[in-house]
């Protein structure tokens, strides 16, 4: 049987596409999760130079290379087909992830180490830019027209699944080999493991056939000769690219990043929650919320995509500030009284003398009656003549009581539920917005600008806003709230809840 014209079972299509996309997300996330360790092992000790390379690795990979990858691979996918293009992105992603795990340390090869990290990170960004559009298009073009939301929603679970897998592998490896070995060499395991996952996925994808709609287009000689030109220079299509970006993916991107990344970062860095607690809260939130990708995707087949996505944005706009205020209030241990304290460990005292002044730190673990605990670090600076210059108390590594822990899981679950509302139907929405011959190119760019740029900038802009005079820990939330509000208004006014008619006769294995 000619592989170009053969038919695939829809569940095999979903399995093959989802597994590959899940692995791509896993590859992309482990770098972010292990950035601190990678910095210590592969980057120079000079903080300035290190920060410079880091900036390039994070900013360039996420904001420039990802949309560029969408254009490069989108074009390729519309020219040569979906199957071979997203096979190529998988090889590039898996190969570069594996190679990051093999880079010798900075102490062995000097500046070649961070430069190799940067190069491979850019390849990762490029591959990610091409993967998603291919997988979503491939599944949608196999799915029955009236069930595209349901079938493509499986692809949508992979972004969250990849995050879950990366956190799970990291936590498991660290617990199995111990924190010091993990920092020394064990961090390479999640990177090296990627090659096995990618190998399996490539094997499965190789056995799949090209999408029936693209095959038909090719057989009829109607494949676009210049997908980039047709996508962005024809008004009829370009106006839909702009509408998809400003009325959907821009808002979806900030809701996604706030729920899945900012929440955990806020709990760890602003609320000073314990490393494991903040991750376990996110993991549980993901576990409970992930089925809703499929529920909302499927529901969108019946009621339309528009209002499900926009409702997710609206709920984020309304509830983000109250939710994060609860995070702050419930982790504020500064008002505890003596009756609340169950035990205090024997303090560990350290003294450091610099230029005649002494810095004395006293570290102890405080356990509260309700089961919560934290590390108290009291520090004071004394001059040579015994005068106290400065005295501070820092509370960190906070562990929550069981009740508060599950309350936080519920609040993170709610935020990821909003992610499932905006993200579950969006693949079907984007696929249907554009005709087959330029679909890969047209849908990939707004998706990656919305997610990579608007979503990826959530931590940076939140920190920027927090630096303005008179800001509070919640001020940073105005960025996702503002962008989601803008996208909500544009989407509500300009988007149609009906599927656009491109005048195509669709073929699928119904």
């Amino acid at each position, binding site marked *: 049987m000619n592989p170009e014209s053969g038919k695939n079972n829809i569940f095999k299509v979903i399995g093959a596409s989802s597994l590959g996309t899940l692995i791509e997300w896993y590859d992309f996330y482990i770098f972010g999760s292990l950035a601190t360790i990678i910095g210590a092992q592969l980057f120079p000790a000079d903080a*300035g*130079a290190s*920060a*410079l390379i880091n*900036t*390039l690795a994070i*900013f*360039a990979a996420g*904001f*420039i290379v990802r*949309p560029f990858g969408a254009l490069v691979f989108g074009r390729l996918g519309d020219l040569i087909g979906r199957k071979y293009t997203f096979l190529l992105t998988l090889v590039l992603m898996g190969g570069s992830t594996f190679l990051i795990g093999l880079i010798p340390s900075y102490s062995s090869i000097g500046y070649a180490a961070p430069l190799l990290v940067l190069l491979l990170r850019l390849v990762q960004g490029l591959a990610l830019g091409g993967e998603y559009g291919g997988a979503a298009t491939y599944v949608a073009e196999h799915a029955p027209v009236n069930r595209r939301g349901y079938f493509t929603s499986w692809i949508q679970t992979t972004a969250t699944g990849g995050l879950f897998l990366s956190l799970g592998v990291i936590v498991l490896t660290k617990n199995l080999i111990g924190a010091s070995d993990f920092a020394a060499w064990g961090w390479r395991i999640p990177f090296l493991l990627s090659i096995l996952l990618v190998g399996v996925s490539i094997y499965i994808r190789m056995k799949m056939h090209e999408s029936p709609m693209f095959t038909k287009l090719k057989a009829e000689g109607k494949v676009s000769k210049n997908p980039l030109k047709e996508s962005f220079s024809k*008004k009829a299509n*370009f*106006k839909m690219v*702009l*509408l998809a*970006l*400003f009325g959907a993916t821009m808002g979806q991107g900030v809701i996604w990043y706030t729920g899945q990344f900012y929440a955990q970062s806020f709990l760890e860095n602003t609320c000073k929650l314990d490393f494991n607690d903040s991750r376990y809260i996110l993991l549980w939130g993901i576990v409970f919320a992930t089925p809703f990708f499929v529920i909302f995707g499927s529901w969108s087949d019946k009621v339309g995509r528009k209002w499900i996505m926009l409702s997710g944005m609206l709920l984020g706009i309304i509830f983000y500030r109250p939710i994060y205020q609860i995070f702050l209030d419930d982790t504020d241990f500064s008002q505890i009284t003596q009756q609340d304290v169950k035990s205090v460990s024997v303090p560990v005292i350290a003294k450091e003398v610099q230029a005649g002044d002494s810095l004395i730190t006293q570290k102890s673990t405080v356990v509260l009656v309700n089961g919560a605990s934290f590390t108290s670090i009291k520090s004071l600076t004394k001059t040579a003549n015994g005068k106290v210059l400065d005295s501070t108390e820092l509370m960190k590594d906070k562990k929550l009581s069981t009740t508060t822990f599950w309350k936080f899981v519920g609040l993170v679950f709610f935020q990821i539920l909003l992610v499932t509302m905006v993200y579950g139907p969006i693949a079907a929405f984007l696929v249907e917005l554009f005709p087959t011959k330029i679909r890969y190119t047209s849908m990939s760019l707004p998706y990656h*600008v919305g997610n990579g*740029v608007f979503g990826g*900038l959530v931590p*940076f802009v939140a920190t*920027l806003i927090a*630096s303005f005079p008179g800001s509070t820990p919640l001020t940073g939330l105005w960025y996702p709230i503002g962008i989601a509000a803008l996208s909500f*208004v*544009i989407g509500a*006014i*300009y988007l*149609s809840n*009906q599927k*656009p008619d491109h005048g195509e006769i669709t073929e699928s294995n119904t």
Partner: protein
Amino acid sequence: MNKLKKALGLCWILLGPAAVVFLFIQAIEKTRLAEPGIAQTNTALQWGIILFIFIPISAGLVIFGYYAITGAYEKEEL
């Protein structure tokens, strides 16, 4: 609804350049506030990348506004 779509087009046309001007002012201010040396180069690099990517996006918002004003998003055209 079609009148609202057209009227809001002007907002999007104005919002695009306004966003770029705001980002540009922030870029200058934050770069100036950074410690001279690598920290300043790093801040300038971050903002350079942000401006590089946001200028075309803002241009896109202006075009979106123009399309809205000219009725490209009126229901019968979608």
